[in-house]
């Protein structure tokens, strides 16, 4: 059954139907696995072959099936199948569609390796693999230099994160002598070692790269250059959650390193707020969603920093549902308008593309956390944990959530309400595209049931399920009284409702569009220009690097190193020149010299006797 899910890599370059069938097949395989899996057994490891075996290092190519990997497998294959199906419609007029599906399948393969690996190094295979696929798919339309740049940026930023992962792996290997998750987690419990702080910090650096956290988040908005299904699958639902997955995988280590958890907490909070603020004034439909993704990932990291791994995974799941939905919806809009992405040129689409509108509405409501939708439960769980830790964090996160609500509804209203401001003739997407939308919409609505809290009569099934795989979940304690929880939810919901009302007034009644950046007030312009972080990075890293590269060549290499080498050659030539003068060519002089040498030689011989 595991091989069934691996099989897709082999037959990847056929058309979309086959690709979809394959990934759907692997989804079925995953479901079967899920059905046949007994969570109490803790998981099993299937060894495929020896991979690296040198000296004391034995790293098998092995897969691990447990609650955590199964959850991720279901997300990856499930949403993956839907998005494949969607892509058939979306990419039908692109001549390189087979390539697209091949790369998409390769991505699924890598992502499955990532979640199924039984040790860090196998996970790393997938980790790098998804990076490569992400690179390929962002740069899918390779004829536009900006897209290539975005692809390269994504890969390089991921690579910087990978440095962290490699270092963490090396460190863990040095400490524990193995990279198997199970063994490390067993050995690590109770160990108090500053080494663990270093290792977890390195892991977190890797996670910031892959999951687009400060400081490595700028690649994700640029990654929207790729086709929209790619954005949905890779840059919203699956790949970007790899960092969270890895953290949950090694939750035991993080539990032993509270310092790292604090850092994760603050970075998560900062990212959530920063990205949400940027989202406020973006005009590109996909960019808004991208910043929203970054922001939501920030929430997940906050959950991790708070030690509530199950909440993070829960949010990963619900986020996968509604963000995939939103992206696909956005894709459908773009498709309907023949490639237009600027929301200033949309509006009033509610009547033209009903299914898209409706599903998009559901997604927006879910992400905003309207009661009883999936986002409501997962986000509130995080907020509750935050409140337990400190009201300040709770306040900040709540503010972030309100921002999210505001810009999401701004998006919704600007796109679907008001009057149509564009030129193209909007038309509804084919069935292959709308079916996934509907399925995802349903999931977004009911996703909350997966981890229904006690308050609503549930008993957090997902948490208990995951607990069998990630020991860190066992440390979680949410000890808020039911009353507090209800009050918190009440506050949140009220404020969200208020914000929606404000947004409605601003964008439906009057349709406020953002003007040119130059006319904005300073602060607003700063936000609209994404806090100028891209420019900052460019000035701070890219330009100096290029400068360094040019000058190392021009100065260090050409002026120092090459002359040094030439110096050796020239020295030889110069010595030759000096010696040459002795060679007058005058035979008697040579003879005389020879004679002198002979005399000298004889004298020395005689002396030494």
């Amino acid at each position, binding site marked *: 059954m595991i091989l069934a899910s691996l099989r897709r890599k082999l037959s990847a370059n056929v058309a979309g139907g086959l690709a979809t069938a394959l990934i759907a097949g692997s989804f079925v395989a995953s479901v079967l696995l899920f059905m046949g899996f007994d969570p109490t057994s803790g998981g099993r490891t299937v060894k495929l072959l020896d991979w*690296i075996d*040198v000296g004391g290092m034995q790293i098998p190519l092995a897969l691990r099936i447990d609650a955590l990997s199964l959850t991720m497998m279901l997300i990856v294959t499930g949403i993956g199948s839907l998005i494949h199906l969607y892509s058939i419609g979306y990419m039908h007029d692109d001549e390189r569609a087979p390539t697209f599906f091949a790369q998409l399948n390769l991505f699924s393969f890598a992502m499955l390796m990532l979640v199924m690996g039984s040790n860090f*190094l196998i996970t790393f295979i997938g980790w790098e*693999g998804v990076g490569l696929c992400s690179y390929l798919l962002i740069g899918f339309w390779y004829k536009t*230099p900006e897209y290539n740049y975005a692809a390269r940026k994504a890969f*390089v930023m991921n690579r910087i994160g990978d440095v962290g992962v490699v270092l963490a792996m*090396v460190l863990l290997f040095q400490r524990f002598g193995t990279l198997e998750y199970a063994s490390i987690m067993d050995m690590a419990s109770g160990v108090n070692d500053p080494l663990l702080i270093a290792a977890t910090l390195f892991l977190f650096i890797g996670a910031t790269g892959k999951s687009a956290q400060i400081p490595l988040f700028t690649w994700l908005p640029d990654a929207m250059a790729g086709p929209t299904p790619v954005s949905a699958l890779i840059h919203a639902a699956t790949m970007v959650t790899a960092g969270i997955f890895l953290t949950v995988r090694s939750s035991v280590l993080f539990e032993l390193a509270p310092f790292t958890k604090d850092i994760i907490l603050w970075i998560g909070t900062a990212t959530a707020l920063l990205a949400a603020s940027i989202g406020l004034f973006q005009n590109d439909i996909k960019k808004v969603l991208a910043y929203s993704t970054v922001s939501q990932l920030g929430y997940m990291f906050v959950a991790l920093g708070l030690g509530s791994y199950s909440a993070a995974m829960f949010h990963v799941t619900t986020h996968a549902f509604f963000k995939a939905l939103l992206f696909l919806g956005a894709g459908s809009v773009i498709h309907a308008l023949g490639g237009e992405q600027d929301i200033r040129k949309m509006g009033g689409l509610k009547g033209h593309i009903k299914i898209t509108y409706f599903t998009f509405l559901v997604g927006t409501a879910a992400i905003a956390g309207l009661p009883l939708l999936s986002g409501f439960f997962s986000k509130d769980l995080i907020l509750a944990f935050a409140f337990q830790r400190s009201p300040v964090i709770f306040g900040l996160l709540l503010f972030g959530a309100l921002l999210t609500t505001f810009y999401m509804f701004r998006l919704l209203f600007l796109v679907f309400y008001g009057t149509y401001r564009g030129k193209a003739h909007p038309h509804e997407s084919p069935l292959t595209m709308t079916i996934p939308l509907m399925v995802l919409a349903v999931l977004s609505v009911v996703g909350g049931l997966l981890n229904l809290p006690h308050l609503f009569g549930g008993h957090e099934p997902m948490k208990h399920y995951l607990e069998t795989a990630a020991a860190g979940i066992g440390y979680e304690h949410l000890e808020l009284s039911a009353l507090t929880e209800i009050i918190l939810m009440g506050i949140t919901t009220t404020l969200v409702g208020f914000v929606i009302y404000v947004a409605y007034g601003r964008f439906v009644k009057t349709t406020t569009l953002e003007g040119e950046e130059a006319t904005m007030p300073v602060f607003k312009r700063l936000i609209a220009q994404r806090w100028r972080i891209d420019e900052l990075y460019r000035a701070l890293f890219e330009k100096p690097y290029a400068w360094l590269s040019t000058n190392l060549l021009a100065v260090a290499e050409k002026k120092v190193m090459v002359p040094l080498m030439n110096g*050796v050659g020239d020295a030889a030539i110069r010595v030759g020149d000096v010696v040459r003068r002795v060679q007058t060519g005058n035979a008697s002089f040579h003879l005389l010299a020879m004679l002198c040498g002979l005399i000298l030689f004889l004298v020395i011989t005689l002396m030494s006797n």
Partner: protein
Amino acid sequence: MIAALLLLIPCISALALVILRPAQARPIALVSTLASLAVVVFAWISYTGGMVLHYDLDWMNAWGLRFVVGYDGVGLLMLILTAVVFPFIIGAGYGQQHDRPAIFNGLLLFTQTFLFGVFLAQNALLFYIFYELTLIPVFFVLLYWGGENRRNITVRFFIYTLLGGLSLLFGLVYLLIQSGGNGDFTALQALNIPGGTQVWLFWILFLAFAIKLPIFPFHSWQPETYYMAPLQGTMVLGAVMLKMGLFGVYKIVFPIVPLGVEHWQSTVILLALIGAVYAGIIAFRQSDFKRLVAFSSLSHVGVLCAGLFAWNTYGISGSLYQAFAHAILVVGMLYLVGAMQERVGSTDMNAMGGLKSSMPRLAALFLLVLVNAVALPLTQSFVGEWLMFAGLWQVDGWLTLLAVSTIVLGAVYMLYAYQRVMLGPDRANQQLPDATTRDHLYLVPLIAVTLILGVHPGPILELVDAPVLQLLSSLSVN
């Protein structure tokens, strides 16, 4: 028998080519290299571990020169490497125009002979003789078939490497005096040289290999020479000859002056890594494809050398494994350089761009080669690099950080190069042919080797494992 065949096959065919100058020089050379490959594969299959001695003959005993040839696991790995890479090197000639192909291929085969000699020699002087002999055919290849400014660059290259060789000879003579005129490696390794002596003797011996590899700051001959050399010459230099440096360090420096290695270990690692980062940064702005490959090779070699000097099982095995990966990689990259040159007419990347539209298959092949260059997991390079990082960590965390940072630099310049060559808007007038059958025949096996050994590195690692452990344990006993 195997040793004799390995030395004789290329040598005889080389002589035949040079003397008879047949019209079909390249196929003959190709067959000869394939025959060598078959012999090596046979040796590999029949290898059961330990040191295999083929000949142990007296030659000029008074000078410590004896004809002792054989191999252990590492030697065999190097033989495999040479044998695998050479058919590709000869095969690369199909895209190139040479005058006097018979002599050219003959010289390449001579190089192969001497390289086999280097990797087979179990006597220090025999090693030295072969080591220097390899320079001679390469010298002529560079001098007569090189590009612009070849006289100057070739002579400088020659002087520079000879200087290193001289230093090595000096060290070997010193060792011979110490050992009472017995030049066999076994005898030299049994010497107990005092620590103070080892400290300076280390550099005397290592200088040759440092130049050959080359590591920073001895590298400056490399980029220009690689650029100027004919494609196949660059392949020989980059894929195989620099491995002599690694092999020399493993065979001579490590066992004979272990205390010196211990003393200079961190210095060498630091230098090597500085070189790796330095070259990685420079490579970014290179506008010439071939120079870029030269600098990227320089960068990889820095990490290789650092891994070797990590001086533990992981580091050394990783480095030796990576040596193999690097050879395959260099040949693949350079072949692509050649393929581009054939089509576009120069190696300048400014003249390329947008080629993916007209040659999607070649672009895909390029990407697969590139994946190895940036050491993505499940390629050969990843295994090597991972082992080296693990080894380096045991030496120093900061150095590891430096080493790991090269994977970022590698991604930066490689992807930038890929973008400049393949991606971007179409160029209107370019209707260039896509990958031909020859390109496929050439690159697909290389990529296959990369991937197979990336997924299943066991066979190679097995070869390396035992000798490295033996080396390290013999040193700790001393």
